[in-house]
């Protein structure tokens, strides 16, 4: 008696009617379990989406006012006595504005009150007037009507962040300043405009003069260094390890080490960078070059691991096909395997770069946390990066930096989304089926 005959006997024993009953009984239980499991999944997704929405709503509602700045209209008499032609750049511009403000409120005579009046206009106004005069010297001797930014406290008042009902002593804006503000406002001399300063200047102690561009430029320099170093080195290492290296104990050891490196806390890379690049090689502190080198160390394992996975996922039949018609190892890899693995390699690279873009800790160690006003112009200029700028602003006491912190987070998120979008585009562009 062979196998199939045994099976037939076993089947005969249980009548077919009873089998279907048992199946039906268990069926409803199975479907219930399936529905339950699906609901768990949906709940999990709704919860995570909810938190994500909460995060975005909170950041956007806090951050978007920073994209607007309150301006005030004043008439400035460009006094030729104050503006000698040969000393235009060092002339007393604050004096011009103070004079203009005093003439608008002639009743203000107390020294303390005058100081409060002058304090309502941002010191950025002085630079604005200077720039205007330097650009067009013919204006000297005339009276110009200009819109100048107000001080951050007044800006907060205009944006409704300052409660007029709190006692004067606990308020940043005094009663008398409130009265002046209301008078200006009534006269239509207060206006909110798009805050270009935020996107064109570097950091500043004055919130209304601070901008994100310095940090963004720093981030770009750092990312250029990171990308230029980690992509070619990482991909070359992955291709060598995956395609050319003979399987030996050394290769296994290297692989284990690379996997471990990917799990090393990033601050350790910062310390390594400080010890090697700055202390040993004497590279400048706070420089995007060093930042890029440190982030390269951090990104390399990610790129190597992702690239190796992408190379492994290329079907071996493609390799065999190429070898079978007499392609050399090198031709097989670069004509067939590498192009097919490229989408995966690019995805891995962009994930690594996105991580580098959001990295803070290692850059603190190499001095990129310094207060830097100038926008960096080269790879060795002192600079900071976006996440560090966020950290610095979040640490500042002024109310106006709160919205700037959120606005900077928005800019960082926008950059991250843009890089991820680029990743998807590149992947679709290079994706080929087999």
């Amino acid at each position: 008696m062979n196998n199939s005959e045994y099976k037939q006997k076993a089947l005969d024993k249980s009548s077919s009617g009873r089998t279907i009953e048992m199946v039906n009984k268990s069926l409803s239980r199975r479907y219930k379990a399936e529905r339950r499991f699906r609901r768990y999944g949906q709940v999990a997704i709704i919860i995570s989406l909810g938190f994500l929405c909460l995060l975005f709503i909170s950041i956007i509602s806090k951050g978007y006012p920073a994209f607007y700045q309150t301006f005030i209209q004043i008439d400035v008499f460009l006094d030729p006595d104050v503006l000698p032609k040969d000393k235009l750049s060092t002339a007393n511009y604050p004096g011009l504005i103070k004079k203009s403000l005093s003439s608008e409120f002639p009743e203000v005579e107390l020294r303390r009150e005058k100081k409060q009046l002058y304090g309502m206009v941002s010191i950025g106004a002085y630079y604005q007037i200077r720039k205007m005069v330097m650009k067009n010297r013919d204006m000297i001797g005339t009276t110009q009507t200009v819109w100048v930014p107000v001080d951050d406290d007044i800006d907060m008042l205009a944006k409704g962040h300052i409660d007029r009902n709190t006692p004067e002593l606990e308020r940043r804006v005094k009663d008398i300043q409130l009265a002046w503000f209301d008078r200006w406002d009534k006269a239509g001399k207060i206006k909110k405009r798009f805050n270009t300063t935020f996107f064109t200047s570097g950091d500043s102690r004055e919130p209304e003069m601070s901008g994100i561009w310095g940090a963004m430029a720093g981030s770009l320099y750092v990312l250029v260094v990171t990308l230029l170093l980690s992509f070619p080195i990482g991909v070359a290492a992955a291709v060598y390890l995956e395609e050319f290296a003979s399987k030996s104990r050394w290769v296994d050891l290297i692989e284990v080490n690379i996997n471990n490196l990917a799990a090393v806390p990033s601050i350790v890379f910062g310390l390594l960078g400080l010890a090697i690049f700055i202390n040993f090689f004497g590279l400048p502190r706070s420089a995007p070059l060093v930042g890029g080198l440190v982030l390269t160390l951090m990104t390399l394992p990610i790129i190597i691991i992702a690239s190796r996975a992408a190379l492994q996922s290329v079907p071996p039949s493609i390799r065999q096909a190429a070898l079978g018609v007499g392609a050399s190892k090198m031709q097989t890899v670069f004509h067939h395997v590498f192009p097919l693995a490229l989408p995966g390699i690019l995805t891995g690279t962009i994930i690594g770069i996105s991580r580098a873009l959001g990295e803070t800790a290692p850059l603190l160690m190499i001095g990129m946390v310094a207060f830097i006003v100038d926008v960096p112009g080269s790879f060795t200029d002192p600079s900071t990066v976006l996440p560090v700028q966020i950290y610095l602003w979040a640490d500042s006491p002024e109310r106006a930096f709160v919205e700037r912190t959120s606005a900077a987070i928005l800019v960082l998120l926008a950059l991250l989304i843009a890089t991820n979008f680029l990743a998807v585009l590149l992947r679709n562009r290079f994706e080929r089926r087999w």
Partner: protein
Amino acid sequence: METNESTGQKGFQTVGETKVENPRMTCRDVNVYYGDKHAIKHVGIDIGRNQVIAMIGPSGCGKSTFIRCLNRMNDTIPRCRVTGEILLDDTNIYDRDIDVVPLRAQVGMVFQKPNPFPKSIYDNVAYGPRIHGLAQNKAELDEYVETSLKRAGLWEEVKDRLDHSGTSLSGGQQQRLCIARTIAVSPEVILMDEPCSALDPIATAKIEGLIDELRTHYTIVIVTHSMQQAARVSQRTAYFHMGDLVEVGITDKVFTNPRHKLTEDYITGRFG
């Protein structure tokens, strides 16, 4: 255990005619080890010119491993070791100074699963001539592609869409495209590792007809699971069992009058 006649080493005694006159390839005492596993044991066989030789045997008997020795595809497998002597026109392909790249141009291979490159039909066929620098200009390359596709019996079906992806073809067409790609580099020997196992009967019939035509230009070694296929396309048949070459002979004789008990059991369906 008997003593192998050709080597004097301990091994299985192959029955039948292992030798032919004026062979294209000659294998003497070929052994393959995967690590400690002895996958091919003391195999000696000749492969005749412009002939189809079929390798049959149960799964895992080593027939695929053996034909992969003939163009050194086993080199790509780590821990795989080959000993013995395989001559292609009196040159031992396992000599230390043999370059596998020209060898694989001389001994082409068609695989079990159709594996066209994810490129256009034209590029698939032109790849071999391109990397070996066979064509001087575009016109010559076009000729290589056309001739190869014609020999592979695919030209009429694809001549209007050479720029389409090779992977867009049907399974049978893909396999013929792979054959065209292989013959585009003008090999002397074509190895086919179960070329029809992933195809339907109509596509299989086409490939079998093609193999018969190709015989006039090339020497063909085919591994197959189907004894009917072996009987239809081959002139000689070799039966492998557990890494041993059991019997070699004229196909008709092997199928009608097997000399070894194992061969008889296999082809009568009592085993395998």
